[in-house]
């Protein structure tokens, strides 16, 4: 990975941004304990939408951890994203039950229709496509999550329609 210099965020910027206060609350609630790093990252992701360098540095400083370790943890876990996500999210489950019920075809459909691949966001920033290892909705395979709502028994057509609707918004 290319080395990158991280600029220290000015305290002025952070004061303006109330979202850092929300982080402070979680950090204080956990008594600045370093083992609360994952909890804090969860909160940061839900507050900021993704984990930008500023935020990671801020957390490192507050928890007195080396930035490399915070970066290491943030990149280790799949759920943490270091890139901004689209306005809508489409998660296709690729668990085994979904796999044997042809969930890869759902992905093919999105690739063909919208040139959208897992981990990508449409150029207009409207829709992000992700995959999940298993969301536990195996009884309804193949399953997808549209903006947090689990929808079972999907077909290539139903997934395409959903994404199409978002793009036309």
């Amino acid at each position, binding site marked *: 990975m290319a080395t990158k210099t991280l600029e220290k965020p000015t305290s002025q910027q952070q004061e303006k941004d109330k979202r850092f206060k929300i982080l402070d609350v979680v950090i204080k609630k956990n008594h600045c304990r370093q083992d609360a790093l994952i909890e804090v990252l969860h909160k940061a992701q839900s507050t900021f939408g993704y984990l930008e360098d500023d935020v990671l540095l801020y957390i490192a400083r507050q928890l007195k951890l080396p930035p490399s370790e915070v970066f*290491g943890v943030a990149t280790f876990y*799949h759920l943490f994203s270091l890139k901004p996500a689209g306005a809508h999210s489409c998660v296709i489950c690729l668990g085994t*039950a979904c796999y044997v*019920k042809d969930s890869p075809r759902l992905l093919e459909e999105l690739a063909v229709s919208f040139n959208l691949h897992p981990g990508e966001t449409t150029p207009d920033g409207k829709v992000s496509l992700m995959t999940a*290892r298993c969301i536990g*909705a*195996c009884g*309804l395979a193949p399953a997808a999550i549209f903006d947090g709502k689990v929808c079972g028994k999907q077909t290539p057509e139903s997934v395409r329609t959903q994404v199409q609707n978002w793009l036309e918004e």
Partner: protein
Amino acid sequence: MEFSELQRIAAEYQAQRKPIRIRYCHAAGCQSCGSLAVAEALQREVSAQGLTEEVEVCPVGCMRLCGRGCLVDIQGKLYERVRPEDAPSLVASIKDDSITPTAPAGSYDHPFFAYQLPIVLENCGKINPEEIDEYIAVGGYQQLEKVLHSMTPQEVIREITISGLRGRGGAGYPTGLKWSTVAKMPKTPKYVVCNADEGDPGAFMDRSVLESDPHRVLEGMAIAAYAVGANQGYIYVRAEYPLAISRLQKAIQQAKRREILGSQIFGSTFDFKIDIRVGAGAFVCGEETALMASIEGKRGNPRPRPPYPAESGLWGCPTLINNVETFANVVPIIREGGEWFSGIGTATSKGTKVFALTGKVKNTGLIEVPMGTTLHRIVMEMGEGCADGKKVKAVQTGGPSGGCVPVEYFDTPVDYESLKSLGTIMGSGGMIVVDEDTNMVGLARYYMEFCRGETCGKCIPCRTGTVQLYQMLTKILSGEATEKDLESLRQLSALVKETSLCGLGQTAPNPVLSTLRFFEQEYKQLLKS
């Protein structure tokens, strides 16, 4: 809180119940089929038909036949695929037998239900998981009270040892032995950890238990903590299960308010606190040493064992790690006795096992059967084979760490040893049925792709081996491979299995070896002639 108060809460709760209960499934599966809208419609109908005095609409946990949701039960009658528009006829049928509800009726006499023996799932689908009083009303927390007041920690461990309970996370380590090892450790503090990082794709037993009966798991953990001498518990649960997380949070809060968790529980000297740790999407964190690293806020890298967590676990302290289903088995064992539990199952595997039956099977859902039930009974009778008249080819157990059992071996009774002899493992309990259309080489590659993406990268055999194996399988699938590649595939599989650091790498080649063993023909057909 005392025993008499538990009884008072139970009695009060029973008294305020209405005589007729409409139960609807409120777990994740049926929720995504729209069970909340169904519940609203039912509630509206009950008011409209003037039945509010005697009828109540109750949310309950998983009702098991997930493939046919939403499920609704009215006085012991099961209705499947219920939609909001079915509500008027459903509610009207309570008072008037001549009215046939528009929703299809199910039957509890169906083999899917008839062969089940609910011990872990005894409250699932019966009680409201978000209401502690309802759990207390069915005898909840009485075993914890009994243990604290009339049993020594040694007696509790003896009971668990007699029961023959083995870890339900997959490896099948004797639970009693694990507990006594932690109990004997002189170092304090000690920790109790519940592994709810159910990562196997195609498995959802633990999610269902947590969503349907969270207090059962909390009570089991508290009893375990008393037995081993711990005062702090952690539940490590996947972030992919938001409903399970919120129900656990609610359950812990309610238990604290009722003073069942906290200090001096039931007036004894025992203190116990439980915190939830939410995972962040790493399959390897299901491995116990990786899971502990993750609880400590680090990357989920496993470390070599020994030392085992029982000796040196969280922050270097003795730690008891058990799976959700293992903890859920504790309460019935204490209630009925270890002898009773050991009377169920086979010679080496006692009790029942919960399986998630999915894939190309007609009846998908959650089943709990005694150990030793044959695969034929599970797949062909309870699951009724394939939905569209296709032939069942095999069943995959144990997820990416397991293997497949072809249909010719379906008379095998399921227990830890029999599955091992077939080259697969019990695993956490996912059973994925595949039919004649499924390409087994493709399935093996699917699992290898999974392991390739989930390897933590710490040890070389797993990090590079899974990538190489994936490429070999891709080559075979594209018709470019020769007999020699097949040989290399075997060799590398054996190497990765023998030399990897943790369970993930050691078992990653299993799906390949297993499909090679039973479906070699499918590989051979793909070779370049």
